[in-house]
């Protein structure tokens, strides 16, 4: 491995390590990605846009606040090298930000990027499992294009970043689903317990007890499981009392 490749591997380790620490912190992952990209390729700045699962909202970040807001505006304007890379899946390599073609294509993005002192941009799509889910944009000064070695490696970097974001998203989705399943199962348990309590307390069948529980929840516009939980905790003595 060359020194650069070792650096890519180090940033990759940083990304995956960060994800393992807190799989839900996507924003921290994006910040690491932008900063890692800037540092690796000796860019002047970097910004990143990411659409988890290919649906809105677009999450953005940049290596400094002005780039962070450019990333957010670009997503809203649907403009810029990153937007094109993200929507077409094609990399834009070493684009002249101030060129006439760039100004025509991105009437708001091009002047803003130029005003921030950036001359050239390289935008790479971040690939998810089925199609691109975002883009990483590296900016350099007008007279400083990315060197050839960097260009070869920057694709690898974007590819690894796309995979990492996808894996992180799958893990965090699994966590959310685990919470939902647990909630659904626990709700069932307390509803059955509350049915037993009400049936025994008022000499009802279980079906009658359930109808009473559901009727109370509906008329008080409350969730069935919440009412049931209160019954099991000895509250709501008035429920079904004549």
């Amino acid at each position, binding site marked *: *491995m060359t020194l650069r*490749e070792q650096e*890519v*591997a180090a940033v*990759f380790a940083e990304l995956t390590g960060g994800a*393992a620490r807190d*799989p839900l912190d996507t924003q921290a992952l994006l910040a690491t990605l932008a900063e890692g990209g800037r540092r690796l390729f000796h860019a002047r700045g970097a910004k990143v846009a990411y659409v988890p699962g290919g649906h809105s909202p677009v999450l953005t970040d940049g290596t400094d606040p002005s780039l962070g807001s450019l990333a957010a505006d670009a997503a809203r304007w649907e403009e810029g090298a990153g937007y094109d890379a993200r929507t077409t899946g094609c990399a834009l390599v070493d684009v002249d930000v101030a060129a006439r073609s760039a100004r025509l294509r991105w009437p708001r993005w091009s002047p803003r990027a130029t005003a921030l002192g950036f001359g050239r941009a390289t935008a790479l799509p971040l690939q998810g*499992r*089925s199609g691109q889910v975002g883009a990483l944009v590296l900016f350099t000064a007008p007279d400083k294009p990315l060197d050839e070695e960097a260009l070869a490696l920057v694709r*690898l970097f974007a590819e*690894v970043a796309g*995979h990492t974001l996808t*894996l992180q998203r799958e*893990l*965090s989705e*699994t*966590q959310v*689903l*685990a*919470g939902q*399943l*647990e909630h*659904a*199962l*626990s709700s*069932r*348990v*307390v509803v*059955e*317990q*509350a*049915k*037993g*309590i*009400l*049936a*025994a*307390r008022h000499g009802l069948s*279980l079906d009658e007890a359930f109808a009473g529980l559901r009727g109370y929840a509906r008329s008080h516009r409350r969730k069935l499981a919440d009412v049931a939980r209160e019954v*099991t905790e*000895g509250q709501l003595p008035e429920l079904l009392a004549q």
Partner: protein
Amino acid sequence: MTLGGSSAEQAAAVWQRAARARERADRELRLVRECEDLARERGGDLHVRLAHIHQASARRHELTAQLLESHARRAARWADTGGRPPLFMTGVAEACGADSAAVTLVDIDRNQIAAASSDEPSRAAQELEYILGEGPARDAVRNRCAVVASGGVLAGRWPGYGPAAEGLGIGHVLAVPLQSADSCIGALAAFGVRSDAASTTTVTQVADSLTRNVFLGADAVPGLFGGIDYRAEVHQAAGMVAVQLGCRIPDALELVKVRAFADSRPIGDIAQDIVQGRLRLG
């Protein structure tokens, strides 16, 4: 969750799920090949590591497809010949290379809140853990690691569960947690598997498929096609006992469990008796 319609329609719906799992496995395998090609071209270990990640994911989807396909075959046979409806856990036991298998789902306080099993011995063993509050699945959840025990070790490790399990003819058990990242939703216990490292790997892979695809995935079937037992009547009985004896629900639940153990009867039967007024505790 149960699927509506005739049993033949149910079998067809399971086949479709299996086909979707296989598509996911194929997609991952394509990514594995891409990563391996890139690893060969460029050297370095980044793509090798990515290939490993996709390989694991492909294996998980492949196993899920196999579990669904085996259930679909049984569902189709059932549509033709009738009899007892097929159990999803039968295929799980087969995939584990086990005589039988049981799954336990737990809440955040690690209380069992649902269970499924492939046959009577595994159901009884699973229920022993529920009643006694000790056993391999419980330890797998608590320690977040595989638990293996056989023969005399069973009784040494779990003084209540061990001898009773041996009485059910269980000689060897391997339990692994159902976990992903920070979440642990329960455990899978396989009975009568060989006690080697390969078995542990296989059962762990089956557990991974169950967790990520069967219980939690985008295409999940957490009700195991009607095979999961929420122990509804046990909780109804606990509610009734709590009123009859003026105690708290956890204590009432404990009394129902104690009665089942004392009478050596399934806890569901005891609960039925209480709910229908044939049995009063206290």
